[in-house]
């Protein structure tokens, strides 16, 4: 089996990892040091724009990567593809959870002051919750199948099937629920509430967090490849002994 270095370009990984860390440090500095316009009710929490919203974009990126590798796995049967699909889903779950948690904290102490409302029943929030359920089901399904090749195929089929229903979810949910998110019913559009200067930190934040997703995902892929090499070495050793 090929060495990890053949599958993951380690020099490129280190380069991107270091760049992402520097980039995100700058983003954090900019997020707190850049002056923003005062907005009624939001006040400083508008800065959450730089942290909460990129979680959504990162989850979307993770879903795309995972579905892509699931498709390629079905086409080629290459186990590395299945591995990549799995790890992308895993990291996607992390960012999805972070997005939900930060959204809850933000809304509770900004718009829901004095109330006991923690859950919004907002389309985007519900979408993330359902995506997390789907990925949870994905991992449960994986654990139910013994044979690795079958496991990969079954998991890939479910991943792609769920991916097909995503656009419907994105379309149907906003029609059913009110939203605190900008651009929805009764809320000003995104560009109305974000002063152009915030975009200076916002766009880099999105790019930075997607980069961070790539770093964590590639790290996990390297880990999974190592585990696989170990398994195969164990298998060949058992064969050699018998």
């Amino acid at each position, binding site marked *: 089996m090929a060495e990890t270095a053949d599958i993951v370009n380690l020099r490129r990984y280190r380069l991107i990892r270091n760049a992402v860390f520097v980039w995100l440090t700058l983003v954090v500095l900019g997020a707190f040091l850049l002056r923003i316009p005062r907005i009624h009710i939001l006040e400083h929490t508008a800065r959450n724009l730089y942290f909460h919203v990129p979680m959504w974009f990162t989850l979307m990126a993770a879903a795309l990567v995972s579905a892509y590798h699931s498709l390629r796995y079905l086409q080629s049967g290459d186990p590395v593809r299945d591995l990549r699909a799995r790890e992308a889903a895993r990291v996607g779950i992390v960012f999805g959870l972070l997005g939900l948690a930060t959204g809850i904290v933000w809304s509770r102490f900004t718009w829901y002051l004095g109330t006991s409302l923690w859950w919004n029943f907002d389309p985007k929030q519900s979408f993330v919750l359902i995506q997390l359920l789907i990925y949870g089901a994905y991992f449960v399904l994986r654990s139910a199948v013994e044979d690795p090749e*079958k496991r990969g195929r079954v998991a890939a089929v479910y991943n792609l099937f769920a991916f097909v229903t995503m656009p419907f979810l994105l379309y149907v949910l906003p029609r059913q629920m009110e939203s605190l998110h900008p651009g929805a019913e009764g809320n000003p559009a995104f560009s109305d509430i974000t002063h152009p200067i915030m975009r200076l930190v916002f766009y880099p934040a999105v790019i930075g967090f997607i980069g961070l997703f790539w770093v964590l995902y590639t790290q996990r892929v390297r880990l999974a490849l190592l585990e696989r090499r170990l398994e195969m070495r164990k298998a060949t050793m058992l064969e050699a002994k018998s």
Partner: protein
Amino acid sequence: MKAWLRGFWAVFEKDIKLELRARYAINMLLLFALGALVVMAFAVGPTPLSARVQAALLWTVLLFAAAVGLGRAFISEEERGTMLLLQLNLRPGAVYAGKLLVNFALLLALNLVAVGAFAVLLRVQVAWPGLLALTLVLGSIGLAGATTLLSALIARAAGGRGALLPVLLFPVLVPLLLSAVEATRSALLVAEGWAAATDELLTLVGFGGAVITAAVLLFDYIWLD
């Protein structure tokens, strides 16, 4: 093409005949749905419910019944050892289509009984019966499509572990559930009706079409070993 149709019809015929003889799946579906509706009726009590809640209860029961009752479509093949026979003689698409039609027929039968019980037990007034019927049919298409694919997935790979089908099925069917509940609600209220439900009906059609298309494409990968 002819061979495909013959294969598809053969699968459908075989399963329907078996079903009519043993009546296992249909009994399970009906009894589960009735049981759930009775439980709900007692739990809710005499207080009248809003149309939205009534629609929600109906579709929740249908979803659960499908997950519980239709899951065995492929397991019986595994158990009886006829899986190999099917694999050798028929194209995967034909097997899927045959099973899909069986499940769809079962769901239609379920709808008839469940809606009747629902109207009686929860004291529901249906303002637009035609709309309700169409919503049920369109919803059942998507429901059958997804359930057939996922039950095949579980049967082929996971040995049909118990609660796996609902776990896989429910998150995927949320768009269907939401649209169907909205459309059903429109069917229950005199003030709403066809005009209010067009968007939801179109979504159900789109969703059903997408689910079946995806299932047909993906079925090959889990059918052949």
